[in-house]
């Protein structure tokens, strides 16, 4: 199958030259569709010094359908659902905006960039988005607190 061929190549590339603050591995060596991603909170964001575990699942139709990204580590962020799923679905990760020529590396860089710069207008957590827009200081306090509590 072409999808396995492509996923394997992307995995090799990401392992050999990982993007800043990102490290990937397979959740289970026998299954290329489930990845564990270790992401460092970007500098200058309230997530700095936090280490977030992200689950990246590739559909069998990959690369014709986008990967799904979910935070296994609890995070206070307007674009990540504040539930046990911790899912993030926006921009290039949306099924109708997905390009088969996008790389997983680009997906992970996009996710890390989102930690530094949330997109409150595309929020899944409306309350956190409100706070991010109207009370940035309080938002950063809570986010930092959650990072200390769950991601260190």
């Amino acid at each position, binding site marked *: 199958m072409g999808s396995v061929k492509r996923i394997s190549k992307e995995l090799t590339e990401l392992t050999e030259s990982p993007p800043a603050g990102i490290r990937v591995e397979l959740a289970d060596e026998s299954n290329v569709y489930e990845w564990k991603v270790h992401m460092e909170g970007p500098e200058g964001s309230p997530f700095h010094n936090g280490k977030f575990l992200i689950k990246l699942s590739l559909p069998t139709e990959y690369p014709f359908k986008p990967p799904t990204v979910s935070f296994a580590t609890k995070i206070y962020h307007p674009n990540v659902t504040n539930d046990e799923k911790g899912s993030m679905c926006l921009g290039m990760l949306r099924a109708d905006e997905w390009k088969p*020529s996008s790389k997983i590396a680009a997906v992970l860089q996009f996710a890390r960039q989102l930690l530094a710069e949330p997109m409150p207008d595309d929020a899944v957590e409306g309350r956190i988005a409100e706070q991010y827009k109207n009370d940035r200081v309080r938002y950063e306090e809570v986010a930092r607190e959650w990072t200390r509590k769950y991601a260190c």
Partner: protein
Amino acid sequence: MNALSADEMERFQKLSNNYQPEIQGPLVSTKQSSHSIALDYSNADPTLATKTNALAITHPECRIMKGDGNCGWRAVAFGYFETLFALRDTLRIETEIRRMKSLTTLLERVGLSDSIYEIFVDATEEVLNRTHAAIQNGAQDESFLVEAFNEGYCSDAIITHFRILTSAWMKLNPNRYQAFLPMPLDQYCSTRIDPVKTEIDEVGLQALIDGVIEGSGFGVEILYLDRSEGDVVTPHQLSSDRPSGATIRLLYRPGHYDILYPVEHNLNMAPIVNLQYGMTSDYSPWDQASLGFDVNSSLMAIPNLMQDTSFGMGAPMSPMPSVSPTPASPFRMSPQQDMYQSPMPTHAPIPPIPVSPPPQIAPSSAPPPMTSLPSRSSDGPQIRLNPLVMKPNLSRSLPVTTPFKNSPYNQAHFQNSDFEPIHWEPHERR
């Protein structure tokens, strides 16, 4: 009254945003009668009804693409492979395989890496190889292509290949397209060309043809079905006319593309031609045996005899052998002959049958007079030939006989299961 909390409202909004209607039907259909398109519009605007009825005559067959956002891309891609297959030229396919591989330089030049695009290029190459093999193996029809394009992975991969080539081509030739775009070209490519299931628009289609199809030497013609004035769909040639004459024809209805097949294509490709050839071939033993229909007036008097396909296929015949006066009759040599228990003793005296043609020979209707055909010598078989069905491109095969024309195996016969009356009434419903 506020039964729904904000969270629930959000959840429903999300469900609603993500809702995608289930679209029925195959990704690429088999060839079908264009009358189905006319039927779709029979109760619609009269302009559309008139145009689709005219279309069903000029382009009797079509192939419907699934309306999943990829239809335009899929129609061009399928049309490309099908046209290549129809030419039955393996050298040309080898050239195309080389050309498709060489196009990857476009992808490299816009910064796509081999690990990203190779599976898409592989899919196109794989189907080109299958087309090559199909020609070598003498495949009857393009069903292997229909199968390939209905296989999700293969279909998606080829469409993606054509999309990324188009996108790269546009980025490398910005001056040609930018003026027609409502946004910067890079943004156009990343939002209108590259994402999965984005409909192709006019500019994208032109770029697809310029960048990917043009090099194959195939023309592309679009027939626009809209409510503009006129009795026929508006044709638009998207590429210069080709000496090869190979043209991919698309039907455009706002938001949707399908493939069309004009009359000539139909006659060259449709299996009905083979059937006619096959049926007339089966008559050849009569020729050798010099069986005269004229002599055999009793045979011709049997109602509906010629409507039975088993007649020409050597299946058991009923009382003919005993009626036939000529020992040379091929019916006597039929292998089933022995199994047949004649109701009459074979050697029973048979009243003499006049050798001259009886006045009323025709099975049901009088055939039109022969025109261009050389008249057969009187000792040859007197199969009646209908000049109306002597189409020029059928001339290499044997002509359609009047009995065939009058049989329900002829699609123009009202008893044929595929028979479609051309006539249409606005108030008529199926």
